[in-house]
């Protein structure tokens, strides 16, 4: 399997004004290549959720997208911390560390990570105080 397209993005710390820009570009890229809409939908949902997590819970980070020759899309979200203290809980639907205020605004329903896991075909997450790396893949029906 060889990489046919590689893209890199940066999410700056607390740059809420740019929230969603990376996922928009990912979405547009896949749309112009002409991916299957069903796969595109899953990728759009997962990339948006992960990008926003990076903004809300971490100090920004780096995002890469690799499209393989068989149509597989792999996204890597790598942030420099502070890490997820209890990964097992974070993967439980409904569990959230968001404040009451954030919840009132509609954030932090605790569905973030479980949702990403649900829509992706492969899911891996590594976290320590030095940062979190989330790797998700999607197999494309071409």
């Amino acid at each position, binding site marked *: 399997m060889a990489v*046919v*397209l590689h893209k890199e993005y940066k999410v700056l710390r607390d740059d809420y004004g740019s929230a*969603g820009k990376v*996922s*928009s570009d990912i*979405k*547009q*890229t896949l*749309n*112009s*290549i*002409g991916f299957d*809409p069903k796969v*595109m*939908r899953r990728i*759009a*949902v997962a990339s*948006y959720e992960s990008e926003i997590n990076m903004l809300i819970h971490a100090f920004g980070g780096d995002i890469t997208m690799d*499209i393989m*020759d068989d*149509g597989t899309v792999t996204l890597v979200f790598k942030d420099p911390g502070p890490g997820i203290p209890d990964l097992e809980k974070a993967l439980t639907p409904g569990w959230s560390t968001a404040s009451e205020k954030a919840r009132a605004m509609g954030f932090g329903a605790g569905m973030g990570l479980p949702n990403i896991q649900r829509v992706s075909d492969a899911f891996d997450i590594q976290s320590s105080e030095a940062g979190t790396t989330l790797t998700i893949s999607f197999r*494309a029906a*071409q």
Partner: protein
Amino acid sequence: MKCVKACPTSALSMADNRVYIDSARCINCGRCVQACHNRGLLAQGSTLEDLKNYEYTVCLVPGALISHCSNIEEAQDLFHAIRLLGFDEVVDMTDVTARQLQEAQLMADSTNDVTYISSFCPVINRLIANRYKVLQEFILPVNYDSEIAARLIRKKHAGRNVGIFNLCECEAKLELAKFPYGNMEYEVDHALALVDVFPAIRKNMKQGKDPVSFNVRGLQVCNPARIVQKDTYLIADGFDKVCAVLDMAEFGLLNQFRLLFLYPCFNGCIGGHMLWGNSFLMTNNIDALSDGKRRDVSYIPFDDIYTEDFLRTDEDTRSFMERTIFFRNVNEQLEKLPGYDCSACGMQTCRIMAEEIVKGNKKIEDCRVLHALREKKNDNQRTD
């Protein structure tokens, strides 16, 4: 050049002082026509000459035009004036529009997990087919009101040579007819541009009155502030705002809504480019045109209401690899371009220029900015 810049889908380009429109990209939104300060771009409709080709002629009048009348008497005058253009029958479409709305609501209210998108605007349907393919399956299969109305008229006068003319308030609706653009799949025969026929209508005013009775719910559909409101419906107007809503829908952020009513024109169809009045004033007219009675909508067979045509898209014949490699090559060319999106080369953006370079239609030397930078460098070398 303003038209090239105004295009939301990068369909326009310029070469040798001519404007070229890529029909695969164009969504008929009409923003180029609006932006043109030289009146060089026009969306033309059929002419009244075409009335002669039919034994019996019918004119369809959209709610957006009716909303230009500030009271029932003005509307009666308007319908009479339109009939004097040579039509045997002038049909108000508000009843059909109301049925179209009812059907959309029935579908939206009977689901708990789907977010449907209203289908009444051809620009939205084309925009989604172009840029928001993820959402295409959620466009309601409810046909355009002009099509539903035309099918009913065709049945009513079966066996006769009936010409159905749709009076259009915007550029996009001119496409929803057999002529002048040759879209033979439509039931409407001719699309008339309101701006073309309005002078003739004006001359016929104040010469009589035809009876009218509008279905207010249908009339309300042409405006986002008047259309039926519900907490599970999201109603948005204005091109950029509509795009923002579609982006959110693709990210799965609007799952709490059952129906999205989207109007690319500000203030809805009342803000149609071929209408002249202030769209806020027209909005109030909708209330004045109501006779206060709530009407049941007419019975229309399902076959005449539903269509699956919105789901049709042109198949890309290139393989996945070809498409991806094309995209990668475009990105490589884009790196070499200055990224000013100045349009001096005739292309709207550097990305479109990069695409044209990869396709072999343009050369990197055609970039005016790079050219200027090279010249400057040469000048500097000479002075050194």
